[in-house]
């Protein structure tokens, strides 16, 4: 609705061309968007950090040293060399824990967003392309699903499934597949009315072939942007569940777990809260800006 008037009448054809015929144009458009470059660069950095955590962390994230407990970050009085972001109440290095914490956050982000997208896309494609009873069933299911308060449902699900990273991922997938389903359904319905789909059917392609080889590639741009936005949501949900104590066990460092500990001791050691909160903030904003940028560049329709 927002920038609808700014989208030329030929936007629809333009998006097809971008998605299908001229991949380099997408790349140049993305590289020219500073938001996308900065946000994408930050997320790339996070991925590298997660993959190489044991190599770049100066300390074992679990190594306790009660002689160096609650040491403030570098630059503050009583700071210790080697602990740039200080230490927590057990003398564990905050920066090293932050570095290892990226692993859980990114695992949840990629796996949960990927699975939610998979389920939502399959159902959305079916509902949008087959229509009729399938569409009615899927749409009603989505409506009932969205009547649940998401935060409550996620806590409920994790409590029921037991804590742990698998439950966190399951909870996110179970709740957020509807986001993908709704958009993919609408997009599929729009695509199914296009001339190229009619042409493909006329040429004798089966419904399945048209769905996979014609419609899916044209729905993909919207999907990529949605998945990126969903990753930001997943990182926050994991942090919230860790904060409440329902995510991974406490001997695995997570940002949410660090935030929970930091919240308890905020008056003695503010950096224990500030450091993981800043990391979470930057990550959420990065996923969001990247998703917005991708949506703007890849698909004019999403802006409506």
């Amino acid at each position, binding site marked *: *609705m*927002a920038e609808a008037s700014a989208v030329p009448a030929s936007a629809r054809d333009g998006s097809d061309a971008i998605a299908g015929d001229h991949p380099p144009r997408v790349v140049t458009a993305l590289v020219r968007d500073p938001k996308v470059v900065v946000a994408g660069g930050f997320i790339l950095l996070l991925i590298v950090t997660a993959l190489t955590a044991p190599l770049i962390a100066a300390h074992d994230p679990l190594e306790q040293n009660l002689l160096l407990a609650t040491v403030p970050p570098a630059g503050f009085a009583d700071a210790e060399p080697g602990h740039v972001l200080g230490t927590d109440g057990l003398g564990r290095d905050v920066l090293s824990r932050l570095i290892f914490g990226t692993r859980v956050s990114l695992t949840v982000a990629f796996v949960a967003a990927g699975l939610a997208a998979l389920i939502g896309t399959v159902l959305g494609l079916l509902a949008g392309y087959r229509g009729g009873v399938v569409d009615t069933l899927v749409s009603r299911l989505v*409506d*009932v699903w969205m*009547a*649940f*308060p*998401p*935060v*409550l449902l996620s*806590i*409920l*699900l994790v*409590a*029921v*499934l*037991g804590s742990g990273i698998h439950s966190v991922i399951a909870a996110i997938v179970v709740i957020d597949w509807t986001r993908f389903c709704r958009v993919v359904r609408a997009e599929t319905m729009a695509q199914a009315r296009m001339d190229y789909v009619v042409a493909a059917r006329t040429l004798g392609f089966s419904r399945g072939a048209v769905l996979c080889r014609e419609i899916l590639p044209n729905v993909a741009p919207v999907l990529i942007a949605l998945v990126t936005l969903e990753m*930001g949501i997943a990182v*926050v949900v994991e*942090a*919230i569940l860790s*904060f*409440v*104590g*329902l995510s991974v066990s406490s001997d695995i460092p997570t940002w949410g777990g660090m*935030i929970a500990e930091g*919240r308890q001791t*905020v*008056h003695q050691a*503010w950096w224990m*809260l*500030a450091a993981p*909160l800043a990391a*979470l*903030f930057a990550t*959420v*904003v990065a*996923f*969001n*800006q990247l998703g*917005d940028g991708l949506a703007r560049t890849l698909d004019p329709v999403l802006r409506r």
Partner: protein
Amino acid sequence: MWLAIVVNRAVMALLTLAGVAIVVFVLLRVVPGDPVAMMISPGAGPADIAALKAHYGLDAPLTTQFWIWIKGAVTGDFGVSISLHLDVMEILFNRLPATIELAVLALIVALTIGGAIAIVGTLFRRTIAETAIDGINSIFLAVPDFIWALALVLVFAVALPILPLTGRIDPALAEGFSTRFYLAESILTGRFAVSSNILAHMAMPTLALALPLAAVIVRLLKQSLKEAMVQDYVLLARIKGMSELRLVVHEALRNAVGPTLALTGVQFTFLVGGTVIVERIFAYPGIGNLAIDAVINRDFPLIQGLVLMFGLIFILINVAVDAGAAALNPRLAHG
């Protein structure tokens, strides 16, 4: 016509609520995880467990349990909380006012902040100021209440310790109330010292809940205002010599506010959902904080009551929004 829409929506809402009740009941019963296992002392034998199950009606067949629960829920009897040993309905009614006051205050704050920034952004449209507002707003759109709550803790409880970190009111002041709506009652009875104490406690959770909603309002309302500003009636008012501020506030706002309010209603349900984690962070004694404890303790009767309560609040908000939108829309009013 207007009434027909509202009635239609209300019936759909009741059906949704019934669906929510069934899903929650099945979810809690089918999955592994025994509430009795959480309550028994380590030395208890099988006989003790069976007695405890019988006491809470957990030994009856599922259909019977569901029937008892639905019958109770309709008559306002949600059973007894397993962890708190109190009537679920009583707990909910004691805790609900705190959450209602928090959510409504956050809504008012969000509308005020969001409305003011949208108007300023419209006045400065197509200038560097609007670009700055849009840029900052895109960050506020991305950051959820959970992060704001903790950032506010760092600012107003640690760096500049001017606000109380936890609770709803100083315990010493929490006396002499005849309702649980402490803020509303203290204002209505003129006990402003008490009101300001409550407001100080509510400031951080309110702001944490309000900021993301304010960002949504800024985006929606500014767009509507900008569209309204190029309409003929605004042009006419401009020719009559009305000032730019009056044009925005008196002419454009009147026409732009409808669609924004309709979408704000939907967003308000997200705000209510956000009270769960925000109340937790500030140890605020509402139903959100209670929900997390109930889930951690696997307190089935309390969880069921809470989920239905949240479902009911969501549905009421949606029905109110639909009724409001239908009433505001002249095309619907004339059938």
